[in-house]
């Protein structure tokens, strides 16, 4: 993979982490209320999948969707303003954290009822198929959602009619507080897809490069008209289910193991930093080249270390700006709310 792409993935993950940690902070300050489901730990999935997605693809997501929304081009300002319930939020303060929407960006919503993303995505795909467009729908869901009837009903219909859906399982092993072996008779989600003859793979969801590549391959097949695909990404959320959940049901050793060894941000940093040539390699290259290469590598190395810091401060600034934007944005009015409900009334005047 080229370095530019890796840097892009890294920046997206850094922004995702910084945004969510700041959202937690703003929640404790009281600027954000209600349910707030955060994404730290799972960044590699959304970042890998949505960087591989095409600009004309549609995305349907769950209530843990701030990062997905930003990756589709909704500005951090608009997402933060929505978390604050303000009028300049992407859903104008009507949706909040769980219901981010942006028609233009083809971000078709965050859904608060587990299992709703399946039929919505299937319907979008049906509409695409009717119009014979070379587009796909990316349908996010968690491991807990696969025991809803809609999972089975929708996979059946998507396969039956060859609809262009990429089903993306963010398997973080917990449906709120119930670990997957306690909620699923078969804990490998991808295996369920074979009951509907849908090609499926299980991928390490902590490695953004693998996520990116697997998604790209699956989407190419979907664009080619071969019907739906399912990808299961094994991941882990570092926080509780929502801000109301300390996550105390999980063994500390489990959480620590993922944080220390599997932090997707750490992996992405490791893989993005260049390998420096050893002193022996440098001297073996000869004096002139040595000086040149030394200088290049040195420069590149410094650049990268600095770049990493620069990236960190860049995303910190983006998040600061988003919070400032959200704080400054006005509250929506009751008239606004009525107008949003009636957006579909056309010109009809009710008696």
């Amino acid at each position, binding site marked *: 993979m080229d370095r530019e792409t890796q840097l892009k993935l890294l920046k997206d993950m850094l922004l995702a982490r910084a945004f969510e940690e700041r959202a937690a902070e703003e929640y404790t300050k009281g600027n954000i209320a209600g349910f707030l489901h955060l994404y730290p730990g799972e960044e590699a999935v959304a970042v890998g999948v949505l960087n591989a997605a095409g600009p004309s693809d*549609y995305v*349907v997501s769950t209530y843990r969707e701030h990062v997905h929304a930003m990756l589709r081009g909704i500005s951090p300002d608009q997402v933060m303003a929505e978390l604050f319930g303000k009028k300049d*939020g*992407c*859903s*104008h*303060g*009507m*949706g909040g954290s769980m*219901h981010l*929407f*942006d*028609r233009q960006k083809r971000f*078709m*919503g965050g*859904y*608060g*009822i587990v299992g*709703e993303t*399946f*039929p*919505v*995505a*299937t*319907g*979008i*795909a*049906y*509409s*695409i*198929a*009717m119009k014979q467009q070379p587009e796909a729908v990316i349908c996010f869901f968690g491991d807990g959602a696969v025991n809803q*009837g*809609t999972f089975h*009903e*929708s996979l*059946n*219909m998507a396969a*039956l*009619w060859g609809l262009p859906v990429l089903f993306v399982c963010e398997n973080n092993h917990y449906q709120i507080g119930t670990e997957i072996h306690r909620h699923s008779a078969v804990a490998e989600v991808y295996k369920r897809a074979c009951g509907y003859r849908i090609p499926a793979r299980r991928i390490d969801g902590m490695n953004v490069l693998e996520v990116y590549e697997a998604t790209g391959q699956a989407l190419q097949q979907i664009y080619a008209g071969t019907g739906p695909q399912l990808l299961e990404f094994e991941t882990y959320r570092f926080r509780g289910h929502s801000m109301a959940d300390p996550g105390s049901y999980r063994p500390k050793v489990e959480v620590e193991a993922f944080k220390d060894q599997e932090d997707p941000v750490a992996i992405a940093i490791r893989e993005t930093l260049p390998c420096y040539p050893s002193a022996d390699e440098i001297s073996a290259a000869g004096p002139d080249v040595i000086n040149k290469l030394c200088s290049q590598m040195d420069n590149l190395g410094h650049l990268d270390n600095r770049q990493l810091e620069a990236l960190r401060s860049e995303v910190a600034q983006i998040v600061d700006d988003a919070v400032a934007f959200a704080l400054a944005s006005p509250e929506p009015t009751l008239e606004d*709310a009525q*107008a*949003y*409900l009636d*957006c*579909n*009334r*056309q010109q*009809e005047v*009710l*008696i």
Partner: protein
Amino acid sequence: MAEEMFYWQALNRALYQQMEADDSVFLLGEDVGLYGGSYRVSEGLYARFGEWRVRDTPISEGSFTGLGVGAALLGSRPVVEIMTINFALLALDAIINMATKIPFMSGGQFPMPLVVRTPGGVAKQLAAQHSQRLEQTLMNVPGLRIAVPATPQDAWWQLNQAIRSDEPIIVLEHELLYFSKGEVDTQVEAPPMHRARVHRQGADLTIVTYSRMLQVSLQAAEQLSAQGIEATVIDLRSLRPIDWDSCVQSIEQTHRLLVVEEDSSFAGAGAEIIAGLSERCFYLLDEPPKRLAARELPIAYNGTLEAMSIPRPADIVAAATDLCQTKDAI
């Protein structure tokens, strides 16, 4: 240019007309395609428009209704047929949590041109699980409209309007109305989808009703007339919103109100109608308003008990006579 036809034919013609006019209209549901629909409503459409626009679905009410929601997000105009309203209970997540919430919680970004057609009501000995009405379950949902066509003409008008509308709409049909006949004028301009229709004018009392109870009320009104009581019969045609003005105008003349509904009374449509009209014209009423509704029982398979469970013409006559007892005294 009126033509006599069955209620199902009026619906069929409306579907045909809308599908012919707009490629984004499509029909989906169980047995709507090859089979032609359980009540013949989609007869001939599969052959004319093909499988992508007349889609036979698996038995998955929750997800194929949700599929309609997703397709509507992209501007398609899905008409979802749910074979009976009893099965629509499996689709309430799609109807209530998705279709009516997405336009609102997206801040007005997504209209929802979704039509769900489904028959409710007591038919002929279908027993408790296939005889529910359930309009009360759907009435308390802001953002959802409910059209209840009672005649072939209304079926023609209201289904056409529902498909053209960008709001989520339940078209609540009735199993015993599909094979009722009536005049349909396809050329005459339709009244607003939610405008009530006065079917009979009388000075003594106002009967407010909807769906199949219109026919039953009209039969009762004839019997009442023979007894010297003249009833106005109003078909609401829409349960959300409700055309209050037409009802109030009639009560201004009659000063008596009887609501006839096929659903159970407790927290039902009649409760809303009487509450709404009491707020609007309490002092016009000479007598406490009356409700006539189904018994608070599931519907029995036994035919005699089934018939006794919902209002019959004789029940309406008795209630109206009772309500008009003081008429001559005033």
